[in-house]
């Protein structure tokens, strides 16, 4: 096989144009496929972003009240009491937003008062017992107790003083305080500079709104009671496996309490997660389709060109056969030739793949292409080349020696 390399290279030199086209095609395919696979992996990884809540049993209902009917607080209490009384409901509350949902409330968070530029931007979750209702996992400290909650609308109209307590996620705690315990530490919220003490840490709680992956854990829970009038929506956790049944019952109950109420949206948490990552999922599917089609097109191109070469060299093959070359030698020749071309394509392709990755890193804030993608890509293309060249090479091997005497 190695002895063939010399003659192959000199033969390729004669077909420089065709050979370089094959090399270029393989190189581009290699560069695109490596980066596409990398992107697919990256997108699929985001699909698994932990929300930190009891996803299977959380139900979300958005309602809109027509006009305003007196006491928002009393209405809220009545609605929630009715919901909690539904059999199969484990917990219910009104919250300003849901993990991975599209409505988000954000503020800046600082480690010192009157800080010039803020430490981190966080997304906030409000609602009576919202952490417990969602089913977050407490890893340190405690949840708020019922005396610590303040109505959000009283807070914004200065009718009540905020209670100076806050809960944060483990990820945010690490970002703010490193490995030191966050419990009892103070943070200052937003431009209003409210000092709040960390009293509890939850394992995960994914931010709402389309935030970056790096910031998805930067979330806080604050002890404000929400009403639907101040933009909140119902969040219910059902007993295991009863989400759908509870959703239907809850909607019915809410309509029964106030028939004029309009149910804008009712969804299980699965819908929220699916909607949040729908773009990523379809992008991954698209990339996969492109990879497959690209590999098929490249393989067909190799088949076409190899067939042409075989046709062009029928006489030479005949001569070689007449001079004593075996079929397997001819087969090897074409296989080795393809191996060399693919090899050259792969070398150029690696450099291209790296270049494309640099572009993507700059334009789309992607991480660097891991090095192990390169050998994997190389093997894939070598195998592809060998599979594609096999049929034409077999045809070459079957050229009879007698061809040498013709023409």
């Amino acid at each position: 096989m190695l002895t063939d390399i010399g003659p192959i290279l000199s033969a390729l030199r004669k077909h420089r144009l065709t050979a370089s086209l094959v090399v270029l095609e393989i190189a581009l395919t290699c560069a695109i496929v490596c980066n596409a696979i990398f992107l697919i992996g990256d997108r699929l990884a985001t699909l698994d972003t932990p929300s930190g809540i009891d996803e299977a049993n959380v139900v979300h209902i958005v309602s809109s009240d027509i006009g305003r009917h007196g006491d928002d607080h009393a209405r809220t209490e009545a609605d929630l009491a009715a919901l909690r009384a539904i059999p199969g409901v484990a917990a219910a509350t009104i919250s300003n937003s849901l993990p991975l949902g599209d409505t988000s409330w954000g503020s800046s968070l600082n480690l010192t008062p009157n800080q010039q530029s803020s430490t981190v931007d966080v997304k906030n979750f409000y609602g009576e017992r919202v952490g417990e209702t969602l089913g977050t996992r407490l890893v340190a400290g405690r949840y708020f107790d019922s005396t610590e909650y303040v109505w959000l609308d009283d807070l914004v109209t200065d009718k009540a003083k905020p209670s100076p307590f806050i809960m944060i996620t483990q990820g945010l705690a690490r970002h703010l305080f490193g490995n030191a315990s966050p419990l009892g530490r103070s943070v200052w919220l937003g431009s209003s500079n409210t000092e709040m003490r960390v009293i509890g840490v939850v394992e995960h709680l994914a931010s709402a709104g389309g935030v970056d992956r790096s910031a998805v854990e930067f979330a806080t829970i604050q002890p404000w009671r929400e009403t639907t009038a101040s933009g909140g929506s119902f969040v219910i956790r059902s007993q295991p496996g009863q989400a759908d049944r509870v959703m239907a019952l809850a909607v019915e109950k809410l309509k029964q309490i106030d028939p004029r109420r309009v149910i804008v949206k009712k969804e299980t948490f699965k819908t929220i997660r699916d909607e949040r990552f729908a773009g990523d999922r379809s992008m991954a599917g698209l990339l996969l389709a492109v990879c497959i089609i690209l590999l098929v097109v490249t393989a067909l191109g190799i088949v076409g060109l190899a067939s042409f070469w075989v046709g062009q060299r029928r006489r030479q093959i005949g001569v070689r056969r007449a001079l004593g070359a075996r079929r397997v030698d001819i087969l090897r020749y074409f296989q080795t030739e393809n191996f060399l071309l693919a090899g050259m394509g792969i070398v150029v392709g690696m450099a291209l793949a790296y270049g494309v990755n640099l572009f993507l890193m700059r334009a789309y804030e992607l991480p660097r292409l891991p090095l192990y993608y390169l050998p994997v890509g190389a093997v894939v293309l070598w195998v592809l080349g060998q599979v594609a060249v096999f049929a034409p090479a077999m045809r070459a091997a079957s050229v009879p020696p007698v061809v040498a005497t013709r023409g």
Partner: protein
Amino acid sequence: MFGYYMELALRSLRRSRALTALMILAIALGIGACMTTLTVLHVLSGDPLPGRSASLFYPQMDPRDMVGYAADQASPSQEFPRQLTWADGMSLLHSRRADRQALMVGGQVATQTADARMDAFVSSSRYTTADFFPMFETPFRYGRAWTSAEDDNRSRVAVLGSDLNDKLFQGQDSTGRVVRVDGHDLRVIGVLKPWRPVPHFFDLNVGAFSATDDVFIPLSTARDFLLRRAGGIQCWGKGSGDESTLESSECAWLQFWVQLDSPAKMTAYRQYLADYAAEQKAIGRFERPAHTRMLDVMGWLDHEEVVPGDVRLQVWLALAFFLVCLINTVGLMLAKFMRRSGEVGVRRALGASRASVFSQLLTEAGMIGLVGGVAGLLLSWLGLWLVRLQPVSYAALAHLDPMMLCATFAMAIGATVAAGVLPAWRACRITPALQLKSQ
């Protein structure tokens, strides 16, 4: 002569069916991928108001306090709030320095007719001022827009979008009838024809590609009833975001657009804006160094990066894919043309010039391009149909327009002919004598 070349091309293509099919397939796939992604990009990065967008501007200023302010120009704290406060919006609106001006915010309301048996449903609303309609040239089917006087009088009137009029009044002329909005009765004075500027440039906060609003209500009336507001709000200092006191709070929550018909007016308005900010700074309302900005529609869309990054990524991917397909085609065409060296030799020996052989081979390439283009067009339709099935906000907008249709063919034929140049040139350089001898 061209007819003869076509015939030759057809014959040659028929002779090597597999190779021809392969080339057509490669071109079709490449074109299909490119046209699908380029059409989406074309739709999303289009001009929402062609011909008018260059005279519409979005004035911005920075009324925030000094908390979090960094003097460094590159700091994100220097970025303007996306919207205006009520105080600034009203000052600019009432100064009437522009040809037209409108202050607005989006919202959500429960709508129904006066017939109480009908269940209310949620519609998207826009609370705005009189100039909104003439400034954006909203097309009216029935009735009229409201006037500035009606703005000032807090009139109980509404203009319906086409969809909502269909739903509430079965598409009839509903002017003079009553629409019940969050329990308040408003008189319908106008109904729009279907109207959906893409992107939804005047308010990107409710989604850059959201469908247009269902019901339009005077801003003053909406504030009287405290109708629900949607979209972003940014507060600082003592701004609490309490919905009932938004007029006096330190929160930015309104969009303001002006129409300026000449460059001179543009310059004058910029100056007016700068003077306004300087004056507010002088009286101590603004704390930060006074600076203002005024982008036109396309400038604003560009600044807000409304085209999703994924759409651009898909275009890059499709172009790279098309490049591979083209290289593939060049290789295959080279193989095909070189295989016919004998025929070319005979034609050359019989007196055909190099130029005529060359143009004959290019005709053949062009035919592959044409067929590839037709197949590519079918694939683009399929691709766009798949895009429309995607759960993205712009899904419904992905349609091929005549311009992109022509572009498809131009691109397919252009690219294939370009791909044919090198192989054809190689083939027509054959020395006739050598070819004839070796046969």
